[in-house]
């Protein structure tokens, strides 16, 4: 097998990083401002965004199970679908998360699809 230098997974071009300027701009367009680092329930995140997820509000069993599956506290995910289930992608692996568990997972959005404003 040919060895190539490892490259980190690049964010797809359609996703833009949330930055202060955009947040200001989105606020000026009338959208509710969303500050970087603001935690919100996974179920309220927009589909297509990238986010850091926080599992510290889950009970120990669920958290341990998620960690073993690779959905760790603090890891970055792409939120493919919001609803029941929420579908997350970590690297190339997809996970379906039932509504009950998803409502107890919080996320900090780091990049939104096409740089669109975050919902309030």
């Amino acid at each position, binding site marked *: *097998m*040919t*060895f*190539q*230098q*490892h*490259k*980190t*997974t*690049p*964010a*797809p*071009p*359609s*996703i833009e990083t949330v930055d202060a300027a955009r947040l200001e701009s989105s606020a000026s367009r009338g959208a509710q401002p969303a500050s970087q680092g603001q935690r919100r329930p996974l179920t309220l995140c927009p589909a297509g965004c990238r986010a850091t997820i926080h599992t510290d509000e*889950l009970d120990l*069993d*669920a958290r*341990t*199970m*998620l*960690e*073993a*599956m*690779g*959905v*760790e*506290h*603090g890891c970055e995910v*792409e939120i*493919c*679908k919001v*609803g*029941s*289930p929420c*579908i997350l*992608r970590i*690297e*190339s*692996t*997809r*996970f*379906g*998360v*039932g509504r*009950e*568990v998803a409502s107890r997972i919080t996320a900090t959005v780091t990049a939104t699809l096409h740089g669109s404003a975050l919902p309030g």
Partner: protein
Amino acid sequence: MPAHVNDHVSTPSSPPVPGRQVALIGNPNTGKTTLFNRLCGLRARTANYPGSTAEMRIGRCDRGDQRLEIVDLPGIYGMDLDLPESRMCRDCLDGRLEETPDAILVVIDATAPARGISLAIAAIARRLPTVVALNMADLAARRGLSFDEAKMATKLGVPVVAISGRTGRGMDSLVDALHTAIPGHAVLPLPSATNLERRAWIDGVIAESMGGHDAVGSSRDSVFDRLDKAFTHPILGLAVFVGVMGVLFWTIFSLAGVPMDLIDVLFEKFGGLAADVLPAGSVRDLVVDGIIGGVAGTVVFLPQILILFFLLALLEDTGYLARAAFVMDRVMCRFGLPGQAFVPMLSSHACALPGIMSARLVPDRDDRLATILVAPFMSCTARLPVYVLLIGLLFDGSPWLAGFAFAGCYLLGAAAALISAFIARRTILPGRSRPMVLELPAYRRPSIRNAVLVSWDRGMVFLKNAGTVILGIVIVMWWLSAYPRAETPENAIALRSEAANMMATAPAEAENLEAEAERLELNAQQSGSFAGQIGNFAQPLFAPLGADRTLTVGILTSFLAREVFVSSLAVLQGGGSDVDDDESVLKLVRDAKRPDGSPLFNTATAASMLVFFVLAMQCLPTLAVTRRETGSWKWPALQFAWMTGLAWILSALVFAVVTASTTP
């Protein structure tokens, strides 16, 4: 980073050791079963873990004079989780179940290796000879990933082999590595390392040994996203699910009919042959009616089981079932059952035996037990002849009402199942279900070979059960209904001699007399047999349901199999055993009278019997399969008591209400 201090790394090479026992472990969806089937093929059997009800597959992999015995352990996400499958893996690797295995084979998904490496670290820490298989290497290459096996082997301190269980690539190298593996020597994260430390170490291994990147955001992901959205959509997803299940069960019914008929004919011929060869007497009756007849009644379901598991394996392989579980979870979770429970419950509409066996799709033990307990409430095909008879009695000449009643029977069974599950999850099986988080495997083309091997394995398990526990039960039931032998009643003898005299002049009347004589004989046998005596004894128990002695005997014999009820009634009313036309049976039963001259069935009796047959547990093979799948007689006993008790209460209620409303 804290780590084991080992000062060298080796890729082991020691002389081949024949007959090694290898424990196969890996995360779910890493192609572990496909690899097992590739290595062992048909040289595999299913056995229970010592002292446990969980099953394991043990297979043999022979290459030349070298032999490996491979034990396929359940898929796990972590060795230290407080879950039955993780405990089982720990116990097996630590030698608490049997002997410690000679080596461990860890299967890792080459397209997403991080979790697999985490599991490999836990396995290598056991200090057993270990080999890591990077499975789906062909898929990884297609996705633009590349890896350096030697570098990964150096970091992990054990051999790493790139393979494809699906195509067979790398199998020879893997088998060689398993024969020569020795315990790993490498600097690995300590068990006490934090998640972040372990993750950083794993990321380092991946960075050094893997190249390229999985093209996230590619057109493939876009297609997967759209499929996921469609398959898990509340309405579209449900429509797709109904369609897929419709096709699944239509295929089962269409394809299983012919082999089922063939099995029927085969056993009939076999029984006829045995009857010709053996001298008349108890031994012949035992062989023909007890053993051959009893086994035929169970083995006839084998085609349904084979086709069901073949199709389920194909569906699982495509990646669709994981999505479907979420669609049904919205409904099932209200009753304390997970989405995966839907397939076993739906399968039970064909027959509870494959339904209960497919409950292994449910990952959580308590959820699985609840599913198994309530699955036989679903109306199976064996109930249909009884529904046809009793609904025919109730709504003769009103096809619309009969149709609604038919649908009502199915709904009543389903409602009883869901409500029973709700009660069970809050009483005898308390506690929360496993969190509904599932890995959604990539969509892919299913492997026919794998599906054939899975359905073959399930079929063999079923046949083994049919040939042991079920056969034993059937023989006991046959003996109870056949002994002690009753003397032929005098009036039957008289009728027979009259029939013989009339045969030449009035053959039709002679046949009627023969049928009447047969009815009298059977009636005498039923009354005199142990089952009949139990029926007499139990009649007061069924009196609140409107059953007299004849109906009580019919109910008791139908505990062997429900459909026996119709043929028993037909025979007892003088139809002879060859009456199988619905209309003829219906007429016979409608005209049947009790000893006091009142009809055998009035509206109240027919309604109460219908409710009883919808809800009661009257299938001994189902109880035997429940025992096998749960590993204890406690669960089938509970299943029997709950279903039959509920059936009795509701039937008695229906009888009382209908009697009160129809009595002037």
